């Protein structure tokens, strides 16, 4: 991650919040791809939220499964009920479409929760480190640097091997991997803000450091943090999928998209490609959509930063 500039703090922007949002929306629309990404994202969110109502079948209710319906290709009709397996069924006769919807839920929940937690923790660490500087700041940043020098997947793997399986454990591992990115970005932004006049003025007024940090510095650090949060969401979802695929992520009882793909992997050779293919497409679309939005956000909020 590179240093982020704070373009929004320039005096050229309108002060009113509504017009700032309008300006932001106008700039956002300039990229058709980003808008497409946003639409896709909203669509997936709706699918995930309304999954229990949309899905033709609850794939985890074992009683409802008919083992004769296993490994049916897409579009086939169930032999027992009037249900159509739009995207086929897997080895345990689960409807792939329903499984995707439920899996989407897990993937998105894990992603959002871990990014939010990492955002909070990382931003706090970064802001404190920037504001106080000195030994505390240096020590905190040292920890951040050490964390960042390790490949994310190794950290996650080691943590999960210690913690075991489970959705909450996966979230913890993801938070542990991501907080450092937020910390570094928050610190970078806060240092730039710290030296500005309004902070010095606030200090002169003997405002408490909590107040200065929270109400003055933090709001101006939000733009780059939002960019990181968006892109990190995509990373988190992809990382969780990877971990589940490897078998160290979420348990079989609460499968995410990655777990579904892992299940379908073994069937690929024998020709039942749909079991892994469709969850894979869903995952790819979600991640790409988020990245398109995040990429464009970065262009809007940090025009000088190309990478």
């Amino acid at each position, binding site marked *: 991650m590179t240093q982020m500039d704070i373009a929004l703090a320039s005096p050229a922007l309108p002060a009113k919040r509504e017009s700032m949002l309008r300006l932001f929306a106008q700039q956002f629309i300039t990229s058709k*791809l980003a808008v497409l990404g946003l639409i896709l994202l909203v669509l997936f969110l709706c699918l995930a939220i309304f999954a229990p109502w949309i899905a033709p079948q609850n794939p985890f209710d074992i009683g409802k499964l008919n083992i004769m319906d296993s490994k049916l290709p897409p579009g086939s009709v169930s032999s027992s009920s009037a249900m159509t397996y739009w995207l086929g069924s897997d080895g345990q006769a689960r409807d792939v479409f329903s499984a995707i919807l439920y899996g989407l839920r897990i993937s998105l929940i894990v992603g959002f929760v871990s990014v939010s937690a990492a955002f909070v923790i990382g931003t706090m660490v970064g802001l404190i480190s920037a504001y106080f500087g000195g030994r505390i700041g240096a020590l905190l940043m040292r920890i951040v640097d050490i964390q960042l*020098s390790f490949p994310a997947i190794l950290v996650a*793997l080691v943590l999960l*091997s210690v913690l075991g399986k489970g959705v909450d454990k996966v979230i913890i591992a993801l938070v542990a991997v991501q907080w450092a990115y937020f910390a570094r970005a928050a610190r970078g932004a806060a240092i730039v803000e710290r030296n500005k006049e309004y902070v010095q003025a606030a200090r002169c007024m003997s405002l408490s450091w909590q107040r200065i940090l929270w109400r003055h510095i933090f709001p101006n650090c939000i733009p780059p943090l939002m960019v990181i949060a968006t892109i990190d969401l995509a990373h988190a979802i992809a990382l969780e*999928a990877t971990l589940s695929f490897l078998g160290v992520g979420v348990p079989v009882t609460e499968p995410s998209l990655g777990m579904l793909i892992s299940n379908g*992997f073994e069937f*690929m050779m024998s020709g039942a*490609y749909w079991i*892994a293919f469709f969850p894979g497409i869903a995952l*790819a679309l979600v991640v790409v959509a988020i990245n398109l939005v995040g990429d464009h956000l970065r262009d809007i909020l940090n025009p000088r930063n190309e990478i």
Partner: protein
Amino acid sequence: MSALVFAALYMIGDPVSMLASPEATDAERELIRQSLGLDLPLWHQYLIFLNKVFVHLDFGNSFLTGEPAIGLILDRMPATLELATSAMLMAVLIGVPLGIYAGLKPENLGARSVMTGSVLGFSLPNFWVGLMLIMVFAVFLHWLPAGGRGPVETFGPIRLSVFSWEGWRSLILPVTTIAVAKCALIIRVARAATRECLPLDYIKFARARGLSEARVLGVHLLKNILIPIVTIAGLEYGQVFAFAVVTETVFSWPGIGKLLIDSIITLDRPVVVAYLMLTVVFLSLLNLLVDIVYTILDPRVQSKAGA
């Protein structure tokens, strides 16, 4: 670092129960425990560990196979190195020209599609790309094998598979999988660096002297943008090395990544510890190497270092 890893790994789980057959009596389990040294108190085990590692470079024997852990790892390292190196080479050789092209005429349709492609490239999850490649080339088209490593040739202690056509066939898909994401990153770096260097005076002066455009771009521009590219490529190499875990699982490539996953699942601790220690050393050496290469490439840094 070592203490942390050691403590974490050794406190969790009970390898004896994994190794011993279910019918083993308690006495037999105790025997196994003793032979593995697990009956000693934790701090004692740690001291033995430190002694063995740093004095004898002995990481202990794998719980599973009884062979020395370090031997297992070194044995499989060339396979991963082969994968990682080929992938980075591919990423650089394709990414740099594309990035320069995208930087020359950024409004061009071709340049914009390259950039969009790069977003796709690094957002798609690694294992998904691998899966898709297997599906298309191995399952549907039957052109390439779906996994495993090709025939190897021995060079002293190292076994490489690059030198035979058969070896290449097995190498292409996993290498492409890794290269896609890294290529996208390099394209972005190259483009950003190109856009930064192109308007500078020395490029104009080179053109004013009547040098051919090929020389202006291929020598004058390239030497200047290589600095950030090599730095990033070097750092990413470490990431590739770690992330090989995923690719090796997808393609059943016999490298250290696969070894790690298997060891984590079977709680084969000595191997995991040995892997982690080795990775730390490898990454540190890599960072050092990147620093050295940087001073070679950028003559301005040299004189500061020498002065």
